[in-house]
């Protein structure tokens, strides 16, 4: 049976792992919320500063999940972990910044343009971990536990032994991120099914 072994939430002001709060946004700070988490958690990955907000969210949540679940780093081959993310807004937040660059800032910005695809976050996580596994980014009307369950099962019945899944919705100040790790052949965790996904997501659907 497949189990959800670790999960992470990011909202506009709270960051939690397995339901335990690990960081709260300091609204007095000049630094962005994700940069606050990055520093507080003492991550050292300079590329983080170049990433757009969607990739920063995916990077932070995946690193926090890895830290809470050390098996991830040791139990799997470099192509055995699939990445399967979805959201509704695609890369709209960065898309708008890119439009702003050519409509108001003089010229289209290449460094923004390369982030105007929702699947770039999968690439950033793959690069950070040297993971060569399967990738999928879907755009859905809303968080769909059944879709995650169905496609997650498909991935797990193929060459992937574990999956890092996530709903990664960011648009302006609205941040709704829920990443979770699903494994086979482990003892502790929550059964991977759509009821539990709905419960753990804490989304009001």
């Amino acid at each position, binding site marked *: 049976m497949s189990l959800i072994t670790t999960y992470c939430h990011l909202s506009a002001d709270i960051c939690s792992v397995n339901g335990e709060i690990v960081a709260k946004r300091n609204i007095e700070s000049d630094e962005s919320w994700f940069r606050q988490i990055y520093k507080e958690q003492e991550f050292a990955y300079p590329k983080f500063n170049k990433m757009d907000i969607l990739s920063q969210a995916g990077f932070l949540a995946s690193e926090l999940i890895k830290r809470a679940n050390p098996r991830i780093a040791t139990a799997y081959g*470099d*192509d055995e972990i699939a*990445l399967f993310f979805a959201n*509704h*807004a*695609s890369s*709209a937040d960065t*898309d*708008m910044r*890119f*439009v702003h660059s*050519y409509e108001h800032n003089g*010229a*289209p*910005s*290449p460094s923004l*343009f*390369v*982030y*105007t*695809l*929702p*699947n*770039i976050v*999968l*690439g*950033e996580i*793959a*690069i950070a*971990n*040297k*993971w*060569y*596994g*399967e*990738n*999928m*980014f*879907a*755009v*859905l*009307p809303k968080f769909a536990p059944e*879709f995650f369950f*169905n*496609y997650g*099962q*498909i991935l797990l*019945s*193929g*060459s992937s032994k574990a999956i890092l899944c996530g709903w990664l919705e960011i*648009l302006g100040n609205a941040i709704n991120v829920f990443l979770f790790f699903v494994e086979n052949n482990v003892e502790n965790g929550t059964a991977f099914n759509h009821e539990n996904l709905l419960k753990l997501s804490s989304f009001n659907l």
Partner: protein
Amino acid sequence: MTYIGAEVIISPMGGTTAENWSAMRANRSGISLVSKAGFDNADFYLSKILSLSGGYKFEKLLLEALESVSAMIDPEILSSERTIIIVSSTKGELDEDIKDQFSHSAKALVTRFKLVNEPVIVSNACISGVLAINTAQQFIQAKIYDHAVVIGCDVISDFVVYGFQSLFAISDAPCLPFDAQRNGITMGEGCGAVVVSNAKEIFQNAPLALFPGTSANDANHISGPSRTGEGLFRSVKRTLELNKIATDEIDFISAHGTATVFNDEMESIAFDRLGLNDVPLNSLKGYFGHTLGAAGVIETAASMQMMRNSTLIKSLGYQASGTSKTLNVISENKEKKLNTILKTASGFGGGNASLIIRSL
């Protein structure tokens, strides 16, 4: 067994599959010089559907493609609860609503064709199309659905042209995939569709067999191809092994071939590592341009036409080898029975995907 058929292509070369096939057979391209298409009013060669004007171009193409599909399959299928529509696209209807790039079109499909299930959008840069077809195959093999229609679509917008212009990635002439003189992509727009099903009898024309495909990330760079072709190598290797197909069984490769210096070089290295150098190969970008999220579906549909017509189509724009590893790039149309073909795609975000289709 999973079947694939009812392929549709809408491009500057024509609004029907037959028109597109006849243009391909005549080695006629959809690419033309479009004035003031770029930032600062730069002129660019584009594969642009000049007859498509006004707003909601993305939605119009999706509806037109599904209308064409519906005429080629059992009419009950589209409105069945056992059918899913999978749309592959990068930027959807961004020009209509940048904050919600797919909902309006998805709703229009649901209403017009009385769909029971909400369409799923696969958005994985340039591998979207191949990944969407693979997803359809997996959904059907897992018995979650019995039928899937995969529609790949992307339209040309200032957004994408300015973006690729800012990366200096656009060719100053119609693109030249795998050629020594290549210097970038030609952007394209269009729509492709295929039907994937567990039932042979829903197709009016005999379908082909679709085998399970795979994807793999390069884990190297978000906007540059791997120098070793690692992700493409792994994806194709995994797809071949999964289906127990040997390299010498592959009769044709529909490569990605964007015509950037680094992409085509990467593909040559990956195919060389796989021992696929001698397999006849083309890139269809010289005909359709690079249609981004639509490319994998349009090029799969075009490859299916090649199989049905037993014809290898010339890789338009290719004259002299321009990659460090030699490939068997098709230089003239040629009659050949095509039993088993390989389609690949690679893209931003380090994605690579591959699939195999076999004649029945």
